[in-house]
């Protein structure tokens, strides 16, 4: 009798445990490896997700953030390579994961990482100083055509998203700018407000403070549609009032930077599924919505095939720019 009872109990226990076993969950602290220094864009991204996951009890395991921003983020991706198969490490990055290997000789390839999700798209805008003579993007481009190589575009880092976009503008229009790399978007914003450079291609939240103060103004945004409605930022103008670049006569349909989450390669499919699910839930939390509004990013939850497609397209189009500029690292 007792034997049967124990057996029964054991059986129920196994049955109860069965669904839990199929679904993997982290049983130790999860490392959030951030491909930027503390305070950088990817850092804010990771820390927002960390707080959204904790506050809404989506992931029970504790989470710790590690900044590995060296070499434009390469440090974080090399770390992922060294930890192949580790299900407790998530890597937070942009499109630098798959673009960096093209421009620099590095000891990792994109295949060393497994994409989990993209959660947001950061927009790029062309900004000029408030009292600059250029009223529209075509003014700026025409001026650059008239006096090639004299109009200074500032951007953050070298051969990174900003310089790529400037190169793309040059390749599309035939204009010729002079590009000066600085350390980060904030610094480029101030250089523009101080009049040391003529234009920059900052993300919205890198320049919004100077725009509010009326020191700089946007010319156009590189997105297929205008940005979301918002309160007026500067004078009457809000984000939605900025024309898209193709509307304004610059034939670049879209140029956006995804905020992405990755795992090291060779983890079980359940692990990927678990984090995909967690990230999809994050996108619905108020913390996340708040983050999108405050940083003026566009929400876009991409997982699975959709994500793979996006990466493929983004990679192909950017590499074309790299090749035209001769940036691809010689193998």
């Amino acid at each position, binding site marked *: 009798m007792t034997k049967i009872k124990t057996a029964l109990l054991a059986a129920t226990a196994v049955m109860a445990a069965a669904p839990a076993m199929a679904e993997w969950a982290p049983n130790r602290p999860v490392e959030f490896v951030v491909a930027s220094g503390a*305070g*950088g864009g990817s*850092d804010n991204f990771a*820390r927002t997700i960390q707080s959204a996951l904790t506050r809404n009890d989506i992931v029970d395991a504790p989470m710790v*953030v590690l900044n590995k921003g060296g*070499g434009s983020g*390469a440090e974080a991706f090399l770390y992922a390579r060294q930890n192949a198969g580790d299900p407790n490490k998530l890597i937070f990055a942009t499109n630098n994961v798959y673009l960096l290997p093209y421009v620099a000789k590095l000891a990792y390839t994109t295949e060393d990482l497994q994409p989990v999700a993209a959660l947001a798209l950061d927009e790029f805008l062309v900004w000029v100083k408030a009292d600059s003579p250029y009223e529209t993007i075509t003014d700026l481009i025409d001026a650059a055509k008239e006096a090639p190589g004299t109009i200074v575009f500032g951007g953050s*880092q070298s051969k990174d998203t900003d310089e790529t976009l400037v190169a793309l503008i040059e390749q599309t229009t035939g204009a010729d700018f002079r590009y000066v790399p600085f350390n980060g978007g*904030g610094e480029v914003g101030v250089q523009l407000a*101080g009049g040391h450079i003529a234009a920059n291609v900052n993300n919205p939240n890198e320049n919004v403070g100077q725009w509010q103060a009326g020191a700089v103004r946007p010319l156009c945004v590189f997105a297929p549609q205008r940005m979301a409605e918002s309160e007026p930022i500067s004078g009457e103008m809000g984000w939605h009032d900025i024309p898209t670049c193709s509307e304004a006569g610059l034939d670049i349909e879209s140029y956006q930077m995804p905020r992405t989450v990755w795992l090291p390669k060779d983890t079980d499919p359940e692990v990927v599924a678990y984090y995909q699910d967690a990230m999809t839930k994050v996108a619905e939390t108020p913390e996340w919505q708040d983050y999108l509004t405050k940083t003026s990013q566009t929400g876009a939850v991409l997982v699975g095939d959709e994500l793979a497609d996006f990466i493929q397209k983004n990679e192909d189009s950017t590499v074309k720019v790299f090749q035209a500029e001769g940036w691809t690292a010689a193998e």
Partner: protein
Amino acid sequence: MGNFDLLMHGFGVAITPMHLLLMVGGVLMGLVVGVLPGLGAPNGVSLLIPLTFALDPTSAIILLSSMYWGALFGGSTTSILFNIPGEPSSVATTFDGYPMARKGESTRALTLAFMSAGVGALTGVIVITLLAGWASNFALKFGAPEYFAVYFLAFAAFIGMGSASPAKTLVSLTTGLLLATVGMDTVTGEIRLTFGLDQLLSGISFLVVVIGLFGIGELLSTVQEGLRFRGVSSRIDLRDVFKTIAELPRYWATTIRSGLIGIWMGITPGGPTAASFMSYGIARQASRKGEPFGTGRPEGIVAPETADHSAGSCAMLPMLALGVPSSATAAVMMGGLMIWGLTPGPMLFATKPDFVWGLIASMYVSNLIGVILVLATVPMFAALLRIPFSIIGPMIVVICFVGAYTVSNSSFDLWLVLLFGLVGYLFTKLDYPLAPLVLAMVLGHKAENAFHQSMILSNGSLDIFFSNTLVTSIMVIALALLVLPKTLQLSSRLRRRQPVE
């Protein structure tokens, strides 16, 4: 007197029981973080950011900035007691602080450091209060050539004079410059001097080098001379604290000068670390009589500490008003600001007066709290020296290595600490000065970047460094600081020689 009314309003915001509690808590946590080398203010502050989501922005920034002040205070403690800078900006404090502690006057050294730090911080906050609008407009005038000029000025002020052999100074300086170039270059995007080692991709961390050079290097010297710390016999007496405070007014000239240097470097992009070096260098040049610097001169503690803290507080201004962080910690706080939905920029002062002036008012209060808390701990820290070396020595070794590891969670850095420990030991024994190496590591790459950016702007013409009044005057001052001391020395030597001949 609009700013004054706003400040009073700020005090109303800042002084609530809840905020006072946050300040005390922040300063205490900062002290812990500051005392441990490697685990610096930027780490500490970024770890607190998730906690601040539950607070309103004003309380959050008060917590974070209090932690920053605490870390700045704590950083000097280990500099003085063990020659291990807890924070990068307290490296210059080791030059005279540690020798003074070794003479058995650790209480005096600590008190001098904390008091001048407090004075420096208050000077900085007063400047912020009075000049908020003007200073941020001034900072806007800084483009790449001006940046270069400021870095060059800091170099010139420090290197201009030194007692070590010129060839050895040059070795130390160039080694530092080379170490700073390792890793990815911002301007060209090239990976330099890594010799195929992935671990070097992110560069050689300044903190790791400093922990090795100063911490482990000093331990090796201590071991060589016998297994104990000198200065053990120091009496620990609260009366010493007060005696030292009474002594402070004597250094008024150094204090004012260093405060001004700190303000200048805080508002321009120099930052606190460069400010402390520059201030130390100028204090050394300005002193005419007395025992040489590096042997425990009180001015050698007052100068870097005052400048460090006034720069640290002034650095909040460009961060709030322009969104340019001039220190690593400010960069992290700015990240926090954005998460809380505040946009740093000129409008922040107009749109969020509660936040800005609450923060500024809290800086007065929390620095005061910081000085009191830290003075209260002086006897406790000084007592650390009484622990036998065979116990505290290995503990310091562990703390150094763990500290270096936490900088970027890289086990490769452990070997670097060991290597630079040996370098530090050898260099000190053979009279190679360490300071130029450290300064070169702090400023080298930044200066190179600014130089390169200027060259792109000017199409490779050096005229850009003399293209407007601002940059020209900084360059002229820098060149004068570089050349004048040597010529003065030479001419006075010549004059002295004449009567003999």
